[in-house]
């Protein structure tokens, strides 16, 4: 019986570019910015990397297909490079590839890079993409805010919540993330906002206003991983290890069957339960110290608190308003500013989240440092609530 990857793989170096409208940078520059930091952090040379994974979503208008964008831009030594794409979980998938390779013993040191160049499309928001030839014939040409806005309409209806109360909790989430992001020099949006500003922002997709939506940014992040044994050999004592990495894609249940009411994220629930089992977490609300969840929209963060088993069902609004997820709350969420302030360069986001967990666990988060966190969770949700790919990962301190 397989036991999973808990404490088999250590992260020995991480890097993250500054996120934002990087008119000055193409994907190669963004990759290098993150990579240089990770390499210095790990204290290794480029030639020690044996395998690599590249997370990149929009190859059409970003860096291109295949291993080449990474292999060429870093002039890697013809090592195996695999490009992965799993919608918004793409960055996390790159990391999972590297982690699994190390855990399998296929190599000692592996690299995971996530990058996305979104600001060469000529407009704000995510580029239009085709959904495949058959889907084009019948599926709505939905936008991400429109798809996620429906979580709010269904959640409010299910829990009989007044939309104004839900909107206020959503505003609290955005205000909190902006406050966190204002302390982070790598964040794209560094301005604090007020609840009033969030509530009065222009409507994007009912009931989501502009301040309920994350930014659109360019960015890259990367991780260098090795086995716990190898890390020990390299002289590391307190190290960050991967406790769990789980993935759950939709199988059609949400979209094609009436069993789903549209108010929650089914795949997140599945991935979370698997991740907790892999990580040995039995009481997430007490054991998890901090989280970076997929706050593409404020309502997503709210709903995810229940799907991760942190808040009781129907109880997320109360927890949000009680400040449980604020910087000084019991389980700070999006302590780096989240997608809200970093934007969502799709291939990079999962690794950007892991980067913050890594810094916090090692006590290197500067102005935003939390008090002695030992277990952090990251979550991605790729696609739309009605069909998506969810990932839940747990990272923690490991004493060798």
């Amino acid at each position: 019986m397989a036991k999973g990857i808990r404490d088999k793989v250590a992260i020995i170096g991480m890097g993250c570019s500054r996120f934002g409208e990087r008119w000055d940078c193409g994907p190669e520059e963004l990759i290098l910015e993150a990579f240089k930091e990770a390499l210095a952090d790990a204290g290794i040379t480029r030639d020690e990397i044996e395998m690599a994974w590249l997370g990149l979503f929009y190859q059409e208008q970003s860096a291109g297909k295949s291993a080449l964008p990474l292999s060429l831009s870093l002039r890697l030594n013809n090592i195996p490079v695999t490009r992965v794409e799993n919608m918004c979980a793409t960055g996390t998938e790159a990391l999972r590839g590297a982690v699994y390779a190390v855990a399998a013993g296929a190599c000692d040191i592996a690299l995971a890079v996530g990058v996305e160049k979104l600001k060469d499309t000529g407009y704000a928001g995510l580029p239009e993409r085709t959904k495949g030839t058959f889907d084009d014939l019948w599926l709505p040409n939905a936008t991400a805010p429109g798809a996620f806005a429906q979580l709010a309409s269904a959640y409010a209806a299910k829990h009989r919540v007044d939309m104004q109360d839900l909107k206020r909790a959503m505003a609290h989430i955005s205000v909190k993330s902006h406050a966190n992001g204002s302390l982070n020099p790598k964040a794209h949006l560094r301005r604090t906002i007020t609840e009033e500003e969030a509530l009065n922002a222009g409507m994007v997709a009912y009931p989501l206003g502009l301040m309920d939506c994350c930014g659109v940014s360019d960015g890259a992040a990367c991780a260098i991983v090795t086995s716990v044994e190898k890390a020990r050999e390299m002289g590391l004592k307190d190290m960050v290890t991967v406790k769990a990495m789980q993935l759950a894609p939709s199988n059609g249940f949400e979209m094609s069957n009436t069993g789903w009411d549209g108010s929650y994220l089914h795949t997140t629930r599945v991935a979370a339960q698997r991740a907790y089992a892999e990580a040995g977490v039995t009481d997430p609300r007490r054991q998890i110290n901090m989280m970076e969840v997929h706050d593409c929209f404020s309502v997503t963060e709210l709903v995810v608190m229940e799907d991760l088993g942190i808040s009781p069902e129907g109880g997320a609004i109360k927890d949000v308003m009680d400040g449980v997820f604020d910087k000084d709350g019991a389980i700070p969420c999006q302590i780096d500013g989240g997608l809200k302030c970093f934007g969502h360069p799709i291939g990079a986001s999962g690794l950007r989240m892991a980067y913050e967990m890594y810094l916090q666990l090692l006590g290197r988060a500067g102005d935003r440092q939390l008090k002695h966190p030992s277990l952090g969770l990251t979550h991605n949700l790729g696609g739309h609530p009605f069909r998506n790919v969810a990932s839940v990962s747990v990272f923690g301190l490991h004493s060798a």
Partner: protein
Amino acid sequence: MAYGILSFGAYVPTLRIPRKAIAEAMAWASPALKGLAKGERAFANWDEDSITLAVEAARDCLRGVAERPDQIQLASTTLPFADRSNSGVVADALLCAERTTTEDLAGSRRAATSALVRLGHNPGPRSTLLLAADCRDARPASVQEMNYGHGAAALLVGQGEPIALIKGAASWHDDMVDQYRAADTDYDYVLEERWIREEGYNKLVPKAVAAALAEAGLDIGEIHRVVFPASSATAKGVAKAIRANPDLFIDPLLANCGDCGTAQPLLLLAHALETAVAGEKILVIGFGQGADALVLETTPRLAEVQSAHGPAAYIAQRRVCPAYTQFLSLRSRLEVDFGLRAERDNRTAQSAFYRRRKDITGMVGGRCTRCNTLQYPRSQVCVKCGEMETQQDESLSALQGRVKSYTEDWLAYTPLPPYIYGNVEFPDGANCMLEFTDFAPGEVKVGSSVRMVFRIKDFDPKRHFRRYFWKPAPLSGA
């Protein structure tokens, strides 16, 4: 069993523009428009055309009818395709069998009445669904822009229990160019009204009427109602010319709908049949490069079915367009900057469409024969029980749905923002994310009941193609 008209139906789109709004916007160019600024006209939403209007009229006509027709005839001067069977699209939307004969009738505002004359003269064993739809656009500030409407009507003709019998029918051909539209142009060219009235209506209509009455063996004095697709002013002259009481001419629906071209005579007939009693003799007139006339007689069967059909419900269901510029834009008369999202390439993979054409045009999903779960789209593996290759074709187009979640999206491109879409639940487990239509902002709620309507899903302006699918619409009006 007898041969005759077995059922009737009609459809008028929801959108209305007050004629005053047109006059206010365009009187600077044509002050005479102010004199026409009475009432409102119906017009097709951006996702409606003569095919979709005809489908709705057909559904209205076939409500309560057990059998699908053997043949479909679609009459229109505004068929969206010059080469692709328009009636074939209608047949698939109506889930008609492949052996159904489909025929497009065009080239004249009399296309529908002439077809009805032919059906009257050639009774056969096969049932015919005769559809008429028109969606004529007009040059801004023209009289036609004020007077035209968009709509459709349907008659089911064949052997069975008729609601009306065709007692007499006649066509009179005369190449009087009162108005015309060249094949490669957008707009009608219309000649002087007085000339058309005096030389056209007053002289040509009586010839067709006389022939039809003679065939029916009736005198004009025995007619109870006259269906005449023109204004009351024109009707007065024709009444005099055929020696009929002008009060027998029914309301031409110009004040609240407009002149729907090829569809107008059948639309007015459907309107008459909504209130006719058994034994009524109805004279139906079609006009345009000649005239058609039909004498119908209603039967007692009409009373059993008439409440379920006709245009009244659609005329009552209206959504007023707030601005003339919006009307122009929805009719593609004004090029609005909808931003880069509107640049999306909507090329259709025709081979993929062909494989799944029934799924798309008929909204055919699958019902699992093992667990009875209905699902859309149909798939190889049941979404509920996981069994493979168990699904049988079943359409969701006639089902009523319930909104589970929705949004009004101001970011996504649509010709009529906001883009409203959401998750809709159907009976027996089916659940589907769908684009909505005909809802105003603020109108959809979680729990709203919806009915499915056949509409244009996307345009491909680059390749002059349009594709169709089904959308949830407000339940009222059905």
